[in-house]
């Protein structure tokens, strides 16, 4: 492997500006993880306007920091307050909070921080080896491959994450439709613009993302009846014992691998990884009855896995140009706005950006490890801020921010419209993630599809004659049809009711 670009990447990371933005990113990420309300996807969307004025590599370093930083932050509230700050930290509540009740909050937090650091770092190393390989492999991809890949990606995100697959697919379909608004790349004709000049060039990504994720979530949170407040807790023992570390080492190792693998999978991501890691730890433990009562593996496994997954979920985006989850879709959009086209050529054409971002994650993880334990007290203080005060601040940042992108009031209107849509979607059980993901992939998908059809002269069966697109499409069909088959089979047996869906996944 050619090490020169990797080392150059480190040189990029160590530039003071990039270090600063990395610090800002991970700090904001931790804050976002701690504070209930906004998630990393919403925060990244709201901060998109910032990325326009700065260097591309700096922008992505910051946005990435927000994402994996949030995985660290969510742990704090899970352990101390039994309040999951992030969807991927929910599982940590079971054993983490139990440990806190036993006066061992510091142990839980320390194990979580160490596990997160190890998981994240191992994932970055693996990513460094895997990503260039995948990218070079994908350079041979043609329109049929991209069609299949985009279809599969959208389907997986709609399927694996949310409970109501039907609704997620609706969201994805709407997203794809929205992508058609504007000028048709092939014929030059206008589609669905209703004569409005602002729509002639298509819908702008940034206002949609900011409205859908940012304003939508804020509006949605207005209806939340507030949780009971708790007195500020003091964290006593700040460091886990050697025994704890020894006990957790296996869980950390397994969590890293599991998280890395699940993160690459579109739709998988940090939340699924944390769940799977917990299940694995409990299953393989010789004393499973300890789980739920303060088993350190129950904290180490999920926390390691969610960080590993958050890191590896960058792979499909940076190597194939396919976002693996909603947050990656926002970062995809950010890349387009900054003028970088994600895809297999990114490694070779923009090595400084590619390796700069990846190597920044090492630094980011180190910063987070350093910050997460001493600053716990600070974060608990921050939790005293009432959400009612944060809400209008976030609204105004979003509204004014969306204006600054194009100095256009129409963008604010668009943002508000999508804010309403985002609210309605979340309220009615539709995950907005697939919509944005499908929107960003929509142009690619349609183009690839039409090109493929032109190549195949209209014969769609030819998709299966090419090995890669064929395989991907077979997987697509399996994933698409599997639940129908399962549904038919399970109707033979008495079924228990499936409960509500998770509203936010990444």
């Amino acid at each position, binding site marked *: 492997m050619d090490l020169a670009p990797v080392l150059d990447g480190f040189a990029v990371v160590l530039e003071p500006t990039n270090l600063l933005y990395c610090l800002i990113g991970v700090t904001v990420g931790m804050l976002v993880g701690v504070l*209930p309300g906004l998630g990393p996807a919403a925060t990244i969307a709201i901060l998109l306007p910032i990325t326009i004025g700065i260097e591309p590599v700096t922008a992505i370093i910051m946005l990435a920091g927000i994402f994996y930083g949030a995985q660290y932050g969510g742990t704090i*509230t899970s352990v101390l*307050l039994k*309040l999951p700050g992030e969807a991927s930290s929910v599982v940590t509540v079971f054993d983490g909070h139990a440990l806190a009740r036993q006066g061992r909050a510091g142990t839980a937090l320390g194990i979580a921080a160490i596990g997160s650091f190890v998981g994240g770092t191992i994932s970055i190393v693996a990513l460094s080896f895997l990503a260039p390989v995948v990218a070079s492999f994908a350079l041979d991809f043609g329109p049929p491959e991209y069609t299949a890949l985009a279809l599969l990606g959208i389907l997986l995100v709609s399927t694996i994450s949310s409970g109501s697959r039907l609704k997620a697919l609706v969201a994805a379909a709407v997203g794809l439709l929205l992508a058609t608004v504007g000028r048709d790349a092939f014929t030059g004709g206008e589609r669905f613009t209703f004569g409005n000049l602002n729509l002639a060039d298509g819908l702008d990504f940034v206002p949609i993302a900011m409205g859908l994720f940012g304003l939508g979530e804020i509006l949605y949170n207005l209806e939340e009846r*507030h*949780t*009971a*407040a*708790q*007195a*500020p*807790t003091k964290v006593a023992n700040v460091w886990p014992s050697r025994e704890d570390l020894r006990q957790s080492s296996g869980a950390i190792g397994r969590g890293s691998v599991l998280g890395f693998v699940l993160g690459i999978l579109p739709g998988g991501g940090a939340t699924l990884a944390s769940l799977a890691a917990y299940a694995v730890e409990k299953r393989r433990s010789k004393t499973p009855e300890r789980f739920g009562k303060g088993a350190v593996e129950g904290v180490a496994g999920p926390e390691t896995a969610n960080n590993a997954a958050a890191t590896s979920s960058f792979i499909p985006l940076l190597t194939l140009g396919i976002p693996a989850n909603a947050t990656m879709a926002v970062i995809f959009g950010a890349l387009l706005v900054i003028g970088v086209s994600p895809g297999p050529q990114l490694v070779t054409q923009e090595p400084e950006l590619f390796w700069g971002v990846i190597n920044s994650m090492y630094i980011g993880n180190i910063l987070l490890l350093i910050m997460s334990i001493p600053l716990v007290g600070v974060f*608990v*203080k921050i*939790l*005293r*801020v*009432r*959400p*009612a005060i944060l809400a209008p601040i976030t609204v105004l940042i979003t509204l004014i921010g969306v204006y600054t992108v194009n100095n256009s009031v129409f963008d604010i209107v668009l943002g508000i419209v999508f804010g309403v849509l985002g609210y309605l979607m979340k309220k009615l059980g539709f995950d907005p993630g697939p919509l944005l993901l499908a929107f960003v992939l929509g142009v690619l998908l349609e183009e690839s599809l039409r090109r493929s059809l032109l190549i195949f002269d209209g014969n769609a069966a030819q998709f299966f004659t090419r090995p890669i697109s064929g395989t991907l499409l077979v997987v697509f069909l399996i994933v698409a049809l599997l639940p129908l088959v399962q549904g038919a089979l399970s109707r033979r047996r008495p079924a228990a009711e499936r409960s509500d869906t998770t509203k936010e996944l990444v």
Partner: protein
Amino acid sequence: MTVLVGYVPTPEGDAAFSAALQEARRRSEPLVVLNSPPGGAPVSVAVAPENAVRRMTERAEADGVALDLRQAAHAGDAADEVLRVAQEVDASVIVIGLRKRSAVGKLLMGSVAQRILLDADRPVLAVKP
């Protein structure tokens, strides 16, 4: 008929609790402790921590007073909440703790105690630590 005390984990609050406990004993009425943080935040300094709650419970038990602790958050004005709960539990007296507020403090934050004193429709017992 109950005795209502507005409690925060401060010296003023503790003084108010002690006075309220005495009152409840004297009147042979149950004691309602209102420890309501301003709404929303997951963590609030206004919430009585576990050891304070335990102490209050033990003292009430020792004195033979029935204790009703309310820690639900409130939206809006703290004074309004006290008066509302006073109405709800049919308080025969409201006990509050007083502390000195600087002129600027009064301007910015107002005085909850003052509002309770002026707007209450039942006796108010104001104590100092």
